[in-house]
């Protein structure tokens, strides 16, 4: 009955059916009321004013149409190209906010590294300035009390057993005779060679040290 009543309200029934329904509605108050209400609802729906789209919608649609048309022409209808362009655009938009700080950071790194690069080389070259020179520990040897600033001549007297019985040292400043009885060990050691930088004046890139041999005369 409900389906029939709907077709009745819509006017889609054949004449015979229509008459049958009308006869039923005349007898049945519930059905009649229901159909009447449905009819009013339908009539009200029909009477609803057509809604007018706002003016901004036309503008938005035209902008969208223009954009889509441009994309269609550029990609020549290729779906792959369209997807590619879409993601390339998205990636570009994503990277754009960090492009300037990233470029600034890279530039700063280059400048800082360039400034520090010179100091790295200088420190390394500084290490090679030290001249490796052996010296005797003071506690282990008998040292003559001279500094190796100029030619030093050491004269030793040794007996047949090779023991030092007498010695004298002479340099430019003066000379002194040593007391062989006070020697702890049977050797004479030259005092430590002072720091090479105290002996020589470094030039721009080279350091020159002069050595004068100590002559031992038997």
């Amino acid at each position, binding site marked *: 009955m*409900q389906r029939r009543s709907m077709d009745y309200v819509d006017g889609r029934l054949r004449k015979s059916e229509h008459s049958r329904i009308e006869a039923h509605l005349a007898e049945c108050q519930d059905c009649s009321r229901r159909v009447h209400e449905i009819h009013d609802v339908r009539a*009200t729906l029909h009477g*609803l004013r057509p809604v007018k789209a706002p003016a901004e919608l036309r503008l938005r649609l035209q902008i969208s149409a223009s954009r889509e*048309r441009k994309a*269609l022409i550029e990609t020549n209808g290729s779906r792959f190209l369209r997807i590619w362009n879409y993601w390339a655009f998205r990636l570009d938009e994503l990277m754009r906010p960090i492009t300037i700080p990233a470029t600034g950071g890279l530039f700063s790194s280059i400048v800082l590294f360039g400034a520090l690069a010179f100091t790295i080389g200088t420190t390394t070259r500084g290490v090679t300035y030290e001249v490796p020179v052996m010296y005797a520990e003071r506690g282990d040897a008998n040292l003559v009390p001279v500094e190796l600033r100029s030619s030093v001549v050491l004269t030793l007297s040794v007996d047949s057993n090779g023991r030092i019985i007498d010695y004298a040292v002479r340099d430019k400043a003066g000379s002194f005779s040593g007391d062989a009885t006070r020697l702890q060990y049977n050797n004479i050691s030259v005092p430590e060679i002072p720091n090479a930088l105290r002996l020589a004046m470094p030039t721009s890139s080279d350091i020159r040290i002069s050595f004068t041999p100590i002559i031992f005369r038997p």
Partner: protein
Amino acid sequence: MTQPTAGNKGLSILAGAQSGVSEEDARILRGLRAGIEDAYEELIERYEQSVYGIVYRLLGNQSDACDVAQEVFLKVFRGVSAFREQSSLRTWIYRIAVNEAHNHRRWFARHCRREVSLEDDRPEHPNSLEFAQDPGRSPFEQVLNSENRTLIERALTRINPVFSTAVVLRDIQNLSYEEIAEILQVSLGTVKSRILRGREALRRELTQRPDQGFAEALA
């Protein structure tokens, strides 16, 4: 018109409905696929109001209707190359509109349930204009009709969207049952059932609110 039976249900979907595109639709489609500007303009001109009308009646909100209508046209522009022309252009566009409105409604219900708009997005109801346009009715009847229209518009957004869609397409857009079946991709019987239940739901919605006055008007 034959009533659908178990045997010819499939046929009834197409009976009376426009199968394929017309000459005019074909011309517009060719223009869209070729990127001709006039074709885009013509499509917007022809379908803007009807698409907006359907979407507005389903969502009940002007700003949402604008957004969804724009989405609909965007999908039409992008999908035109894949459109196989098995239905008419209008049917295809309306199908997209109905689906987009439903998707938006579902998304809104999920994410913005608690939000309440402070603006009244409904178009204004110039009672004075309707008053002037309907001189055959008494002032009381015109005011009553205006109130009823407001009530029914609100009721449309409250009932099940499946039923309200069918009712909107039939009783507001005046589409045939066959065309509605094609748009919704259901059988003719299902369309009738949904329209019936939609009208019933509206009637119940309106008559069960005695303070609104509709029940009195129907009595």
